[in-house]
């Protein structure tokens, strides 16, 4: 490498080879047990037998060796290495995208909005694209909601999906038992979720840090288990089906004169409902965004951020920290509730399976990968993660490499998990780590993520 810094030259090629060799050795140890020895049940033999799989181990070791060597030679060399004692420390990569973010924030946001608004009318937008966009937007909305709790108030919530579930079940059950329509249930679902946020938050919000994390995780699990087992009320694991679809100001999306298409003199098309759902979630997401931006500039939003920076200082300034945390928790929960009822009406069917811990983890990952507190970061992260997950469904082309036995679907989550690790190591502060001030005397200058606290709660 000609561009390598003088320090980097001190590592010779043999060092890299040695390094890769060590990595390969570790890979050999790791692979030998789980990859190299497969337990399967053979027909005719009772119990399990162990089948060795040498090629897989050799392949894995080779991949690690070559991968590590290439990384060492071409990627890590470029990063300034700081010698500490006789060891080399890699400077944590990922300079904040500060400048880009600032420019991005100004032009990118509106551009994205325009794109989102015209998307259904673009020629590429078939049923698949619209469904995917709806999914992405749902996660954008959830990410924005959780951003209030984690990004602004600095409270680590690992059970956010519970409020999503409360919203979804509120609508489904209200519609089922009281025959209420979507538009009545939407606010009710939000209120109920916020109410649960307060009920659950009140006793636990004085816990700090990871204690709060585990209790929120526990609440998420509790709600899921109750939904799963309270058969008479929630129909248990079978879920609730036949959830009414939303209407367009009273017009149903159905065939005939009284349907949406008939009323406007259009030909009936199932896409109408999809497009309507798309705009609905876009509107809900934008509402979340709008309210969050507004709240940040109000005393309550500033108190959230101050709480994240220093709780003790907040108390010395007369801020009721319990109430402030509760409002953050409840506001975040409310948006999850809205998103939940949208989810219910879109699917027409819900079951506890949709509200597992992995969903909470996914939403949290979107918020952290996007950059805590950054609205546009959440959008990018949601597109990358949810879009990526969908694209990973289409891995059939890999059959060319791995042969016909290759089953792409099972590799999907594996790759997804790896990507999560890699992105996080690459950008520990998230894609956009700067913070925009909420008020200024002169011009607003973005604040580098290094200064921004991460909260204790």
């Amino acid at each position, binding site marked *: 490498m000609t561009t390598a810094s003088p320090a980097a030259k001190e590592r010779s090629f043999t060092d890299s080879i040695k390094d890769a060799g060590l990595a390969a050795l570790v890979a050999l140890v790791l692979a030998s047990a789980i990859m190299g020895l497969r337990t399967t049940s053979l027909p005719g033999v009772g119990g399990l037998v162990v089948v060795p799989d040498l090629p897989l181990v050799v392949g894995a070791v080779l991949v690690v060796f070559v991968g590590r060597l290439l990384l060492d030679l071409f990627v890590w060399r470029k990063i300034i290495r700081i010698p500490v004692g006789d060891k080399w420390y890699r400077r944590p990569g990922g300079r904040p995208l500060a400048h880009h973010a600032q420019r991005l924030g100004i032009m990118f946001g509106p551009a994205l909005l325009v794109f989102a608004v015209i998307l259904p009318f673009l020629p590429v937008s078939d049923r698949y694209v619209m469904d995917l966009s709806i999914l992405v937007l749902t996660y954008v909305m959830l990410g924005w909601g959780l951003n209030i709790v984690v990004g602004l108030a600095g409270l680590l919530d690992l059970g956010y999906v519970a409020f999503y579930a409360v919203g979804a079940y509120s609508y489904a059950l209200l519609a089922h038992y009281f025959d209420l329509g979507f538009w009545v249930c939407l606010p009710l679902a939000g209120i109920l979720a916020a109410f649960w946020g307060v009920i659950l938050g009140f006793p636990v919000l004085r816990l700090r840090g990871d204690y709060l994390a585990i209790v929120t995780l526990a609440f998420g699990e509790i709600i899921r288990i109750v939904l799963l087992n309270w058969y008479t009320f929630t129909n248990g694991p079978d879920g609730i089906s036949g959830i009414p679809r939303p209407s367009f100001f009273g017009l149903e999306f159905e065939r005939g004169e009284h349907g949406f298409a008939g009323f406007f003199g259009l030909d009936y098309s199932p896409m109408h409902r999809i497009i309507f759902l798309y705009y609905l979630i876009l509107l809900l997401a934008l509402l979340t965004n709008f*309210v969050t931006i*507004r*709240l940040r500039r*109000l*005393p*309550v939003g*500033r*108190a959230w*951020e*101050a709480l*994240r*920076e*220093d709780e*003790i*200082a*907040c*108390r*010395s*300034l*007369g*801020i*009721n*920290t319990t109430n402030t945390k509760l*409002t953050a928790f409840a506001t975040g929960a409310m948006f999850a509730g809205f998103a939940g009822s949208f989810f219910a009406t879109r699917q027409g069917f819900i079951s506890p399976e949709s509200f597992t811990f992995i969903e909470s983890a996914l939403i949290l990952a979107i918020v952290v990968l996007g950059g805590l507190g950054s609205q546009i970061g959440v959008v990018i992260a949601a597109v990358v993660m949810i879009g990526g997950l969908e694209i990973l469904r289409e891995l059939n082309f890999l059959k060319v490499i791995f042969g016909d036995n290759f089953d792409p679907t099972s590799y999907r989550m594996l790759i997804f998990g790896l990507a999560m690790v890699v992105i996080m190591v690459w950008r520990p502060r998230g894609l956009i780590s700067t*913070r925009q*001030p*909420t*008020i*200024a*005397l*002169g*011009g*607003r*200058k973005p*604040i*580098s993520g290094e*200064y*921004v*606290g991460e909260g204790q709660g």
Partner: protein
Amino acid sequence: MSAAAATQGAKETAGSSAEAPWANDPVLTVDHLTMRFGGLVAIDDLSFRVGRRDITAIIGPNGAGKTTVFNCATGFYKPTEGMLTLRQSGGASFLLERLPDFRISARAKVARTFQNIRLFGGMTVLENLMVAQHNPLMLASYFTLGGVLGLSHFRRAEREGVELARYWLERIRLVDRADDPAADLPYGAQRRLEIARAMCTKPELLCLDEPAAGLNPRETAELNELLRFIRDEHDTSVLLIEHDMSVVMEISDHVIVLDYGKKIADGTPDVVQNDPAVIAAYLGVEDEEVDEVEHEVEAIAKGPADA
């Protein structure tokens, strides 16, 4: 002087201060305050008065319990025993040991700074000062509802808040850094900002924990001036902890000396300065031994040079 005599001395000064100016209309009255942490008695039956519109200094060696007094007065610790009464100039009075910490700031109007600076580092200087006005602004935004709807009432209140912030920024000469993150300021400016932030809550009593620590002489002089300004122009009583005797002697009207949680002297700076008990406490030995210790210190200082 023996320990018994030291307490005796403290009682005398305390007795003579019964007619002292700060006893007439005290803003803060501390009676028989005791704070124990397990077996450790951090404050032991401490009583004193803080005069209205005075600058009162609490001094004492490290670990004397000064910060603990602040923590009791601002609600961060609940005292084991004792009573802290705050009387506002309007006549209202509050028993501080019964109020939760945030109410002490919000209702009783006691503001404080911290020995280890506690700014909102990732927020701008201006935002720090706006957070300090949380309670009035919250009311003005009708607890957020009005604010979300963008009512003009709130916008006016916010403008006034910014003006107040600007006023204090001018005072502490930080207007041109208003939009920088607080964590980015130099140390001295952070100390000043913390004082300004406390002042934005419009306190009756301002408690400052070692405001001059880490300041250079010029900054210290500015600090003195700022504190006098706060006392004279804002009718705010100041209670400060300080190790820098130049600050204490120059600006305070009243000095209280603590040692091992007990009050060993209480009076005007001149009186306290010459109190033998205070001198003994600061040097950590009894009077007769002072010379001895000095010799020892000299010997040690010479030691390495010889070797």
